[in-house]
């Protein structure tokens, strides 16, 4: 399973390195979301600083839909989905590999969006460790849940519109917990208040990683 996961992750990352869809399209989209929200909230830095954690996670959430859609699309063009199934790769390994690749892409994107949010909104980081922990746990959860729902929507004709409908409500806990954890890390609420939210993010990630390992194969066969 782990060998297959590495193989699939390396393959997906190589495809991204060559196509640069996430870097050239998804990351600018996420930054654009951030800027548009900032424009909507007005020039006053106070409210912007308060809203920065939420805006960051909203931007990441929308970007993760596109990243997951891209990850699923790679397996559906020119019957390559059959190719992945025919390759004999363990479905659990395929799930972990695809989720790991999406997570790495999102982490790179988060560095760009996070830096943008801090600069745009004039926020400062009080607790970098908590910020990184929340980002890692939230990203793992988004990647795992996204990969799972990406596979679920793959077999449908309406996959482009169905994925956000399925995935965004499910990812709401990441938005909420990620925002609270970031608020604590940025000092807009007590720093100790962030720990429970990081734990929620970890539980979310663990649940969806376990679920994906178990059901991804069945979803592949059904789609």
């Amino acid at each position, binding site marked *: 399973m782990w060998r297959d996961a590495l193989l699939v992750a390396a*393959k997906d990352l190589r495809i991204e390195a060559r196509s640069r869809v996430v870097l050239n399209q998804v990351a600018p989209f996420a930054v654009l979301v951030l800027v548009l929200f900032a424009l909507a909230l007005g020039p006053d830095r106070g409210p912007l600083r308060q809203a920065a954690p939420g805006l960051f996670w909203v931007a990441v959430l929308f970007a993760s839909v596109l990243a997951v859609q891209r990850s699923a699309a790679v397996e559906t063009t020119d019957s390559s989905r059959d190719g992945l*199934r*025919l390759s004999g790769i363990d479905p659990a390994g395929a799930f972990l590999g695809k989720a790991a690749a999406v997570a790495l892409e999102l982490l790179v994107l988060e560095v760009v969006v996070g830096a943008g949010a801090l600069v745009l909104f004039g926020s400062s980081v009080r607790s970098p460790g908590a910020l990184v922990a929340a980002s890692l746990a939230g990203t793992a959860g988004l990647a795992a849940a996204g990969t799972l729902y990406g596979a679920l929507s793959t077999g449908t004709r309406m996959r482009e519109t169905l994925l956000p409908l399925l995935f965004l409500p499910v990812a709401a806990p990441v938005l909420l917990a990620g925002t609270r954890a970031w608020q604590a890390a940025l000092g807009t609420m007590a720093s100790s208040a962030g720990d429970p939210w990081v734990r929620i993010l970890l539980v979310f990630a663990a649940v969806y990683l376990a679920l994906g390992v178990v059901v991804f194969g069945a979803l592949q066969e059904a789609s």
Partner: protein
Amino acid sequence: MASAVLLRGAVALSGRFPALAGVDLEVAPGEVVVLFGPNGAGKTSVLRACAGLLAISQGDAMVLGHDLRRHRTAVRRVVGMLGHEPALYDDLTVAENVRFGVRAAGADPGAVDPVIERLGLGGRVRRTPAARLSAGQRRRVALAGLIARAPRLWLLDEPHAALDSEARDLLDDALREATASGATALVASHEPDRVLPLADRVVDMAGGRVTGQQRGQRPRQLPGGAHVA
């Protein structure tokens, strides 16, 4: 000796419609069986079922000793399929596509380079992303992937389609070599002139069932390497 493929009353559905309506088919190890029949006869469905891509809903289905209904991943590691569409990743190069398939199947990565050269995909083509290849070249890459994986069961669906005469000969040679070393092949085709010389047996299909069979024209190999027609 156990059969390489054993289907007994195999039923498979494609959506709500029966793709296979009770297929009985037994293929011995090393045998080359060609499936003939009109469009919709069930030839491709037999191949897809043997590759674990089409679920068998009733009947018995064994491939290379594995129960198809329970051990699909194990079956997929030992079969190789050349379907209508070459299953390639557009953004990966020729070499990367072939290497991924070989590593996924746990086959010998050392086979990749010689096969790529043999299929005429070396040099600049080797480093070309699959998206920039012609239809015939893409088919060659898929064939290279199949040969490099060295599967124990070859599932070939209209294998000569979109290939030029040189590539067709390469495919035939590769199939002969593979079966001479013990691999088994199931071939669906509409080109009797091309595939009959490769076949040990020809199976006729219609309506998702086997309707008859006859001997093929493949020279049988005797112990010691001699051939009889």
